[in-house]
């Protein structure tokens, strides 16, 4: 692997990695707040991508406005989902998994009924002629994805740490009973968190549209890798999700430049080896089992 290929795949990997990071943050946010591994997250991303695409491709709205509309609608969908999932929050992981998967199946097949299985090609919102610096060529849209994702993450951190609502959300995630005593509406906070996580998925979904096809299949590929990224970084941690997402993206792209068809296999095997070496993820706290 020479320097040119290395830098090119690094940038490409960071681009797709920041999409994975947004998805992974969604998983971690919901897990931290509701103790729920939301397996419908990938399907939410797919529905978000479709809604954005419908506005952008069919109705010729501005790309950014399409993202905003999709985020709002998906945010509402996420809050509705909280009501359905509420009884699952206290249950065993397997039941949560199955319940959220059930919702995922419903969303997936509704999307197939509405939009068909074919998938939609989305054109780039900006002129995507590769920039050539020396002999490295970079797609500008990749840089747009990286910058936009970074902005979204910074805005999220600002919201969670500097606003009153963010504080309420964090506190109800950390101490449910205490927050209830202090008069917070914990269920509403949970709904907001699920909504927020879903908004991140919607943004990621619309942004990734021009790179991939927008199709019902995107939910399983991006959804599963996003979950793996969240786990790799340390489940429940936002910095972990970012690190996990970027690592996964770079790893996958770098393997793909060498042996393209084996990239998934090698990425997952390396992922499992990292987990075996560091069972709680890269930045995850070591959880000591209580007796």
């Amino acid at each position, binding site marked *: 692997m020479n320097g040119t290929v290395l830098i090119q795949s690094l940038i490409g990997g960071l681009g797709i990695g920041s999409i994975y990071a947004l998805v992974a943050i969604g998983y971690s946010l919901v897990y931290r707040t509701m103790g729920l591994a939301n397996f419908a997250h990938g399907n939410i991303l797919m529905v978000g991508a479709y809604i954005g695409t419908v506005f952008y491709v069919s109705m010729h709205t501005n790309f950014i406005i399409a993202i905003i509309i999709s985020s709002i609608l998906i945010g509402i969908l996420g809050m509705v989902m909280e009501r359905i999932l509420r009884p699952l929050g*206290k249950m065993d992981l397997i039941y949560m998994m199955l319940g959220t998967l059930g919702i995922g199946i419903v969303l997936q097949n509704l999307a197939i009924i509405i939009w068909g299985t074919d998938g939609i090609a989305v054109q780039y919102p900006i002129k995507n002629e590769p920039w050539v610096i020396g002999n490295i060529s970079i797609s500008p849209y990749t840089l747009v994805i990286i910058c936009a994702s970074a902005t979204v993450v910074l805005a999220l951190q600002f919201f969670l740490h500097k606003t009153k609502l963010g504080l309420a959300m964090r506190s109800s995630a950390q101490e449910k009973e205490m927050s209830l005593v202090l008069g917070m509406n914990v269920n509403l906070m949970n709904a907001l968190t699920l909504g927020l996580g879903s908004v991140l998925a919607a943004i990621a979904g619309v942004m990734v549209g021009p790179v991939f096809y927008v199709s019902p299949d995107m939910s399983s590929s991006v959804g599963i890798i996003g*979950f793996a990224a969240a786990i790799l970084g340390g489940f429940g941690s936002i910095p972990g999700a970012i690190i996990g997402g970027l690592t996964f993206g770079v790893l996958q792209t770098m393997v793909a430049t060498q042996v393209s068809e084996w990239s998934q296999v090698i990425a997952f095997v390396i992922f499992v080896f990292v987990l075996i070496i560091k069972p709680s993820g890269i930045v995850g706290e070591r959880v000591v089992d209580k007796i």
Partner: protein
Amino acid sequence: MTLNKVAVDKTANERMDNQAELTFSLNERKLTNSKSKANYWIAFAVGVGLLLPFAANTYQIHILNLVVLYIMLAIGLNLTMGYCGQLNLAHVAFYAAGAYTSAILTTTYQFNFWLALPISILVSVFLGVLIGLPSLRVRTHYLAIATLGLSIAVNETIVNLDTITGGPVGITGIPKPSFFGILLITEYSYYYLVFAFTLLLFLFSRLVVKHGIGRSFRAVRDDHIAAQSLGINVAKQQILAFAFSGLFAGVGGVLYAHMLSYVSPDTFTFNEMMFILTIVVIGGLGNIYGSIAGAVILLILREWLLQFENWQQVLYGAMIVALVVFMPGGLVSIKSLFQRRKKAGSS
């Protein structure tokens, strides 16, 4: 003393678990009390199972074959997940290993079915042990995604090794087995082969669950640290659980390949994994009879939903959500659900 402390430290979640466990263990005790009664029921069910093909048309016999096959797959997953508490999402990879090994051996290398069968089982059990290794280090969500990732890796490997496995197209023309000179060419005769293996593995699982291994499994599931302190070799039990998963899925895979005479990577996907998992959870985790009921009901449900065409999957998903939310203990909990209602009403 320690036990008290354990009880104090349990979260609400675990408490619920314990309650479920209590009902299960009560059920089990009832079963041992009326052991002969249970045996009569099993004999009766076997009789019905043996006679059913005579009443079935060609379509129904195909469904019957699948039901019996899925009972086997579900019991295997239940041993790992329901009894030993290992979140194993790679069951379908072992299923694929069994199916593909036997398919390759009987087509490319012209092996006899009865020779290919034990080799295929060995391969899938070995894969089970291999994929089970991360369970020694990671648990819960972490184990779920590790096994899922490895399962996807296995599927991709099958697609990529196209010179051996036929790639995305798969392998066709897998020969039907013969049994003492009788070629099991129709689905009617094949049914008895699947039925025999499922019955054998069912009896085996009953033996496992009732004896030392089953008790160790449940101890590992409920509290692996306490289990270790009681002298149970937790690592060994976990690997054994994955080996069982490999055994059941391996046999199932071989039978599946020779039933359809065709295998392709499309069969062994995440969706298939979720279908088997749904059977186990809807039937009742940690209950073999639940897995049998779950397989019967979910396969019939799947066929019944076919009439709704495009909406079948939507309805299927909605039903799963409803079942999980309203009946978390699975089908086997119906009885205790009513009992609890009654108790709540009287007090």
